[in-house]
């Protein structure tokens, strides 16, 4: 049984069809990339899966259970966590407190939540940031913190939305290691939306391509990189020549 199964998912915003009959499966233990041009409907798809948007039609099964129409917090409690692309923090929570909020999903005890947050911050190399305000730390570290918050909820599956956007190549390497660490050592199945090809083609087992709300391709990273439709829609003619 697939851990996540999306069946004919369609999402309309008024007259705009953001997701059109999308179907795919993700097995437990997989690391799947989700790519496509801006406006292809990738983030909308995440919003639908995580319960932040109601779907227009279609079904979403998580671990065999129909989670279509559940509220976002109910989806999260079933072990399906996510991060957000833009997260403008305004509050006065420290990095550790943010991660504790995630940990509080599984425990009511402050001592336990704090111990778990400290452990996760250590795992993701954020220990020295623990006492800082989220707004005070640099963007790459903020991205790691959003991942740490999600991981603190002990998810079975994690949806990562552009965690490497705007980072320099060295920082991308760091994020890549973190994603692999969460996937391999913490045993979390991952779907990641990413524009940074060096990241997504390297870490993904399998890549799904969206364009204009439709799934146009799905396959191994090397297959996707040489797929004429994908090159035309997204990667561009030069991608294959320079990088692949």
């Amino acid at each position, binding site marked *: 049984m697939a851990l996540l199964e999306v069946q004919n998912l369609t999402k309309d915003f008024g007259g705009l069809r953001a997701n059109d009959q999308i179907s795919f499966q993700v097995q437990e233990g997989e690391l799947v990339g989700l790519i496509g041009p801006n406006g292809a409907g990738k983030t909308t798809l995440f919003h639908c899966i995580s319960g932040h948007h109601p779907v227009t039609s279609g079904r979403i099964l998580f671990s065999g259970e129909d989670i279509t129409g559940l509220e976002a917090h109910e989806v999260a409690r079933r072990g399906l966590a996510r991060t957000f692309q833009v997260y403008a923090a305004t509050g006065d929570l420290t990095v550790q407190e943010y991660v504790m909020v995630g940990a509080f999903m599984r*425990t009511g005890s402050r001592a336990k939540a704090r111990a778990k947050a400290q452990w996760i911050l250590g795992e993701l190399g954020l220990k020295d940031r623990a006492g800082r305000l989220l707004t005070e730390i640099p963007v790459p570290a903020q991205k790691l913190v959003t991942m740490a918050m999600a991981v603190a909820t002990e998810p079975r599956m994690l949806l990562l939305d552009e965690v490497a956007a705007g980072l320099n190549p060295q920082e991308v390497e760091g994020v890549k290691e973190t994603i692999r660490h969460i996937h391999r050592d913490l045993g979390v199945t991952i779907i990641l939306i990413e524009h940074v090809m060096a990241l997504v083609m390297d870490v993904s087992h399998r890549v799904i391509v969206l364009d204009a709300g439709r799934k146009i391709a799905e396959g191994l990273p090397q297959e996707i990189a040489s797929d004429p439709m994908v090159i035309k829609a997204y990667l561009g003619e030069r991608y294959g020549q320079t990088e692949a």
Partner: protein
Amino acid sequence: MEALRNAFDFSDSPRTDLMVVGILAALLVAFPLVPYSSFAMATMIQFLMFSIYGMGWNTIGGYGGQVDLGKAQYVGIGAYTTAVMLIRWDVPFWVSMPVGMGLAVGWSFVIGYPLFKLKGHYFAIATIATSLVLKDLFEVWDFVGAARGLHISPVKYPPPDFLRLIFREDIYYYYLLLAFFFVGILVINWFRHSRLGFQLRAIRDNEDVAKSLGINVHWAKIKTYALATAFVSAVGSFHAVYIKNIEPEDTMSLDISVLIALMAMLGGAGSLWGPIIGAGILIPLKSYLKEWLGAKAGLIGIDLILYALIIMLVSAVEPKGIWGLLDRLRRGRGR
């Protein structure tokens, strides 16, 4: 057990803060030992009452960021419950206060459910409306004395009456309220360390992120609103036995709701000491202005002008109020 430990755990506050707080607490305890005027005593009692109102408001309004401008209705529910039960059935304060809190919390669930479907300004306006509707109802409801209100006659209960809380000297009320005040600080300290407190702060920051961390945003707000209500209602009950004249206008008017929110915002919404700082500044100022300036120069309503100025100043200079300003200075120096 852990809840109790969290309530007494102030270890995340800098030691200098705790020393200042300790000294202020000692001064509050010692205040009646020095010669005082009845005006000063009345002001101090008002200060304590509004501090506790503000602490309650601060849970949902400060930590949760939901600007609630309807807290006065719960002052009214508390005050009327205690007054009605005392006058009609001679029920002591220590019974009527929890009953009032129960009624207020029940009412808060009834209106909280639809209220928290609203966000931002719509929420704030709706809280004003619910409070004013309740006030209007009480003004025509004969059972609670309608617009005439209720009067607790101290002659019927020879003071000092510790069951019904009827005293001749204000000092009794003062110490009783001071005990409430300290309990209130402990409850807020528990709250901000609790799962609910963390969840509310996450909600204020970003509701979508909060949901993705498994937080039932709607329910968390309703629960916190109920907690805030319990604070306000308890002091409302106290108001009844202390003031002894209970009218809808004195307990449930918009002025009171605004003042509660304003104090917490001025002192620092979402911080432990903010509402106390706000009350410590605004209540003496208000009393002074009313007592001298207002009567002498015919400047009735000058306090309202002052509130408006304060709101503008806080939102322009530092949305986190005086406490936020202090915190920013400290962080700036620490770096």
